[in-house]
């Protein structure tokens, strides 16, 4: 077969690809979608007549193109999922040390110390040292709340800084794609440049780490990039910048027209940051505020029901600005040691009210839990979130490695080998999938046997 006839085959194949581009893109984009109503791909074989210089079928060359598009998109999707998981895992890991689970340090340590001081007060209600200790421990605890709430708020700002960096990177990479698109358009007139194509793929893969992008190859060879499948980032030789808006309670992402597109961001580092910044972190802060508010209200309510050393109605120990920022603003009032209401009305000098304060250690105060129990639940939830995020990151990373490995394995394989591989995989898969099912059932049975 002459070189000329081979080139002729390629040229014919390219023409078929051009004509079928729209159909192919749909098929490739939806190849992984179960139940997708597939469109017919009408590719015809070319005549085979070696003597007459007709080299035969074109399907292998076309399939390689489809395969490349399919596998590149798969790798990009995996990259997006890993980017989001990696971002969340690293941010939550930095957050975790703020939540002590030993009960000896941080808020739980200070809370236990306050509850212990209530207990001591109930033993010696008129001892000035014990009375002052209550005020001192309350002050320590307030300080702890303010410190941790402030640290969480600073973390928000840190996430915003990271978000700014990620958005800048997205815009810069979109600019790179725009420039490469211009080159591709230029090259397509002279038959295309594999180096430019490789650069374009590498840039799109990098961009996938940061954002949830969809790509559409255009007839002129350029790539249209959409954020969240809807918002244009690049069309031909035009790039559209996105911005992060930090003016509201939640950070928002806006398109080049200023429209809020936050909900469209569903993967990549940007998604990971938005999730932590707008969902996870606020839920921790809300719980911390609830704990601070409940603690202050309950202690103050008990004190209000008692009398101080002079027989006056009990003064409040804690104060805060509003429920929404109770942890940020918790502080001890100007109460003095003699004003602490350890006794009950009708029993001056007694320990009736101090016993009530001491009972706060065990009584259910929030969501059916004691104050320390509620904090333990919050710290436990943070720990679980970190563990889940770390596990998710590892899995996503392995899935990305898997897709990249498949990309390497698929390149340069003939159509016949490819079909044989798929069938061989299918057979092997069936056996393994069945064994996974058996293992799942056996694990379930074993766990039940232990209960």
């Amino acid at each position, binding site marked *: 077969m002459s070189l000329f006839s081979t080139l002729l085959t390629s040229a014919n194949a390219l023409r078929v690809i051009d004509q079928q581009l729209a159909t192919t893109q749909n098929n490739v984009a939806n190849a*992984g979608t179960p139940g997708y109503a597939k469109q017919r791909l009408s590719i015809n074989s070319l005549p085979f007549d070696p003597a007459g210089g007709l080299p035969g079928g074109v399907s292998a060359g076309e399939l390689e193109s489809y395969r490349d598009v399919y596998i590149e998109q798969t790798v990009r999707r995996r990259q997006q999922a890993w980017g989001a998981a990696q971002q969340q895992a690293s941010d939550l890991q930095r957050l975790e040390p703020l939540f002590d689970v030993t009960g000896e340090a941080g808020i739980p340590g200070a809370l236990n110390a306050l509850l212990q001081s209530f207990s001591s007060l109930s033993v010696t209600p008129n001892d000035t040292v014990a009375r002052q200790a209550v005020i001192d421990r309350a002050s320590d605890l307030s300080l702890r709340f303010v410190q941790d709430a402030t640290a969480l708020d600073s973390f928000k700002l840190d996430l915003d800084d990271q978000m700014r960096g990620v958005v800048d990177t997205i815009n810069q990479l979109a600019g790179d794609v725009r420039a490469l698109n211009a080159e591709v358009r230029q090259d397509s007139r002279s038959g295309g440049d594999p180096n430019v194509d490789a650069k374009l793929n590498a840039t799109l893969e990098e961009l996938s780490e940061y954002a949830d992008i969809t790509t559409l190859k255009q007839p002129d060879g350029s790539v249209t990039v959409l954020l969240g499948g809807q918002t244009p980032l690049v069309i031909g030789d035009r790039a559209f910048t996105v911005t992060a808006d930090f003016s509201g309670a939640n950070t928002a992402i806006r398109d080049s027209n200023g429209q809020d597109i936050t909900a469209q961001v569903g993967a990549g580092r940007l998604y990971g940051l938005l999730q932590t910044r707008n969902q996870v972190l606020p839920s921790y802060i809300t719980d911390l505020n609830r704990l601070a508010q409940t603690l202050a209200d309950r202690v103050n309510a008990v004190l209000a029901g008692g009398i101080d050393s002079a027989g006056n109605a009990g003064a409040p120990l804690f104060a805060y600005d509003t429920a929404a920022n109770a942890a940020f603003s918790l502080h001890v009032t100007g109460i003095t040691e003699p004003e602490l209401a350890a006794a009950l009305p009708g029993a001056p000098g007694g320990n009736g009210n101090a016993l009530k304060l001491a009972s706060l250690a065990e009584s259910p105060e929030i969501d059916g839990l004691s104050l320390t129990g509620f904090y333990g639940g919050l710290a436990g939830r943070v720990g679980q979130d970190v563990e889940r995020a770390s596990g998710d990151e590892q899995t996503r990373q392995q899935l990305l490695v898997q897709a990249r490995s498949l990309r390497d394995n698929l390149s340069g394989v003939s159509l016949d080998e490819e*079909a044989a591989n798929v069938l061989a995989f299918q*057979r092997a898969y069936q056996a393994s999938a069945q064994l996974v099912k058996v293992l799942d059932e056996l694990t379930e049975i074993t766990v039940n046997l232990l209960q």
Partner: protein
Amino acid sequence: MPEKILPLNTKPGSVLAECVAEARRDLARVRRLLAQPTSAAVADSAVLLENAANRLRDLEQGLRRGGGGRPPGLARELGELRRELARASEMLESAAALYLGWARLLFAAAGGYTARGEPAAPLAAGRFSVEG
């Protein structure tokens, strides 16, 4: 070949936990194998999965017979095993999804579509070669 597993009903309790840990390590090997999801890797995974299943079957029998006791670490090991099984399963399903997507394109492009709109299965075709 699957490794031969000895009966556990006469072994001390700590061996039960070690048995689960071994099964978990088998699953971790499966997960690593499936990072390169060739059909050969999946076939090798089946051997490891069978190993793990045999270990668990043996453990189940040991527990039913009341042999070996119930060491405190066993529940934790089973939790780890569950997580590892979920990861291995996800790797396997993900590899299948990759092949399935590609197979749809491959078969459709090679054989068109059936009347029901599914990609046609590839047909074995005769071929000849010309030398000279």
